[in-house]
């Protein structure tokens, strides 16, 4: 359990409906399809799908959890990890280029900039889903089940936890993901989360 592993994925299928939802569309918006397709064509080859992760044993105490890299009193996480023997701590990113596209189009086409934001949001969620699915399948083979992923900043798990997460996952080196002083991640379309593993 002492090593950070890295996985790279092929692009999960694009969910256009979900992208438009992230862009603020709540109904039909046929006139956006052409523009969205233009954005998708432009971004497709520029994305990466990188994950780094590490497994830790969990020890449950009355008032806190020992996750191997932190001790936390988060009630939300304790509930989420009820019955878990270990966790997979992971960080995921779709890379820097999407940030550049968002910035580039801010000056010439705010509509495209917005759509790239939405694409980035959909991509990183799809990547996390793909990873969690794969972990669930692998764990199922050895008789374990996984819990829904849980991130720093959800409920009462403080965002400051990001610092410890970055320290143990070696994110800058493994997948080029960095944390700034305001606890924001760069590239911005990135996620860190905990997956509980139990019987």
């Amino acid at each position, binding site marked *: *359990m*002492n*090593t*950070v*592993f*890295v996985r*790279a994925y092929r692009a999960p299928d694009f969910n256009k409906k979900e992208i*438009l939802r992230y*862009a*603020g*569309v*709540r*109904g039909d*918006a046929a*006139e*956006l399809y052409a*523009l969205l397709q233009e954005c998708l064509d432009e971004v497709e080859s520029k994305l*990466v799908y990188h994950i780094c992760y*590490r497994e*830790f044993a969990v020890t449950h105490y009355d008032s806190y959890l020992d996750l*191997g*890299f932190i001790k936390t009193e988060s009630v939300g996480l304790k509930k989420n990890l009820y019955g878990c023997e270990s966790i997979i701590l992971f960080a995921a990113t779709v*890379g*820097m*280029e999407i*940030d*550049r596209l*968002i*910035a*580039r189009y*801010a*000056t*010439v*086409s*705010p*509509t495209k*900039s*917005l*759509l790239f*934001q939405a694409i980035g949001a959909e991509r990183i969620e799809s990547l996390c889903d793909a990873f969690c699915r794969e972990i669930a399948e692998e764990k199922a083979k050895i008789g374990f089940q996984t819990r829904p992923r849980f991130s720093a900043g959800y409920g009462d798990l403080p965002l400051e936890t990001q610092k*410890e997460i*970055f*320290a*143990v996952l070696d994110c*800058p*080196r493994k*997948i*080029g993901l*960095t*944390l*700034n*002083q*305001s*606890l*924001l991640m*760069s*590239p*911005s379309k990135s996620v860190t989360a905990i997956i509980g593993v139990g019987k």
Partner: protein
Amino acid sequence: MRITDYLKNNIIYLDGGMGTLLQEQGLRPGELPERWNLTHPEVVQSIHRDYYDAGSHVVNTNTFGANSLKFPAEELEDIVKAAIANARAALAESHGKQPKWVALDIGPTGRMLKPYGDLDFEDAVSVFAETIKLGVKYGADLVMIETMNDSYETKAALLAAKENSDLPVFVANAYGEDGKLMTGANPAAMVAMLEGLGADAIGVNCSLGPKALVGVVEEYLRYASVPVLLKPNAGLPKSVNGKTVYDVLPNAFAEDVASRICRGVRIAGGCCGTTPEYISATVKASADILPVTIQKKNITCVSSYTHAVVFGESPILIGERINPTGKKRFKEALKAHDMDYILKEGIAQQEKGVHILDVNVGLPDIDEVQMLMEAICELQAIINLPLQVDTADPTAMESALRRYNGKAMINSVNGKQESMDAVFPLVKKYGGLVVALTLDENGIPDKAEERLAIARKILAESEKYGIEKKDIIFDPLAMTVSADQNAAKETMRAVGLIRNELGCHTSLGVSNVSFGLPARDTINGTFFALALGQGLSAAIMNPYSQEMMKTYHTYRALAGLDDNCTDYIAFAETMPQAVASAASEKIGTTASKDEFGSELQRAIVKGLKEQAAQLTESKLSCAAPLQIVQDEIIPALNIVGVGFENKTVYLPQLLMSAEAAKSAFGVIKSRMSGEKATDKCAFVLATVKGDIHDIGKNIVKLILENYGFPVTDLGRDVPPETVVQETVRLHAPIVGLSALMTTTVPAMEETIKQLRREAPWCKIIVGGAVLNREYADAIGADKYAGDAMEAVRYAEEINQNSKENTR
């Protein structure tokens, strides 16, 4: 012996992994390994000694993350001192017979540089400088910058090493399986930049096993004129029965690395997962290989943060449009600090197909040093073309070159002693391809032979600095043919002479040739063609000129540079005749009667940018500009605005319409010089200090501008003082502030507090993902706007009141 001398005739072996071995000895997850220099010196020393015993000439000190961002100054000094002492002790104890050195190991800071992260470039240089100074103080033999996955941070580290030591510097970058750094650079781009900055050896480490890095290493060997380094992982870690194993074993690793040494790699070692066993196997496997001689490659190139542009057979186009000379709108934009204007020029030229962008922001009454640096930084954040730093001010040149993320083109030096004295030291220090104008103290000679003589003089002077011929490109100066009918002829002869006699590349500012003549494009295009025939390598030109682009594409097709004429055919499809016939078909099919008052209204509501501009253009022949605004654009915007408020139109559609309206406004503005286009009041807009999210702010800006508000956009991460200063200067009745993060709401509160004190007349409207009405009230804002339309409605209200008050 200095390691660089030994390297001339020998292969150098480095050490292998450190982190994995420390973990085996009990380093805990998240614990900083650099502290072990102080707490477990015997462990660190024994690892170093094992590597020296295995045959490493060089071991890296255990200082990968030893920097002032992670450690307080005193501890940092203790760590570096102990780390070097540990390596020295191991070196002394080792029974290895090979010459041995200690390298100060420098890893990345772990933070992203601005603008996508929050670490300023100069701060990064200072962070690296501190560690490097300590390395010098405690006696390191060389500096090893490694595992860098961002080109810009690599530059900061290398610059710090060169500025704070005379030690040899080796630089190794970490490439992904796509053959690029995480932030986009390919090997050719890194070679160009690192050689320019004076690295003594360059190469590849970490991330992958030796086989997976073959392609990247080949690229290094193709481009590099300095020794190439390879320090790969033992493949990838895998979990087998709960134990971590790397999937490339020592003998396979050694064979793979040895095969790269045969190809020309001169410095070899291992990274994550490798152990002394890997190194001794590598030494053994390559014992009989003669070191491959390192050849100078003589490649003339520049680079951006993604790729290199190589000067050769195919002509290079350098876009000239980012230059205020003779452009009224550009001058106004510069004075107003309108960076968007510059960025749009850059993007538009890239879309036209130029390879390099010239950047000139010189105007008598602006701070050129600051402006040029900002322009370079903003352009390189969003455009991946190499940039040409164009200035006559050496101070501006230096600050721009320093911040440039790559190997820049530099415009220019000339044969005057004063010019060479000022420019060549900068070329030497920062690297770059410098444009040398063939003029000197006596002006521009008439005859081509005399220009050739000046070129020779410039080459002789540059040699004194150790600047290679390949890094000088001559501009033999296109003179006005209407003033001297032999001017173009001599320039073309000079191109040929410089190409053939000196073997140097040439570039011309083509447009000068036609000055004072009608239909200048026609002359320019033909002159360009003739000069290409003489061997011209590059042109500084206007990519919007149809004639120039025609010449470029036809030349490539005719000179055998365009496979199957593919590029030419693609270009021909964009030529006016082709486009016109396609467009008329389009309009013909869409001109149906529907619920809209006119075609223009329809175009705006449907968000059709080009159509909106075209229709406005044709309307202007029969209607006054302001009438079109009143009768067409405003009603169209209202349809969309009301639709958005009623949730039948969504944000992306609102923006599409706004963009279409903006392009209609653009056409109208061009017809209204002098007339006041709006009666709306000033609106100051900013994303608050510490916050770098600006999409919401940009949306509000676009919509406000549609409704005629002259918006002063201060950008993102704006200090309270700047907001106050601009509000006071403009006596703006409304200020809009945006924040996306909970952590920056205090900065918003502080900005409001200062505004209340210094600009009590202004109304403050706030927005952003973390805010709501209650929060806005709590920090003292006048208004919370949940979306752009709400902001517009409020601004209209304030505008009305302020007009009534002044009546």
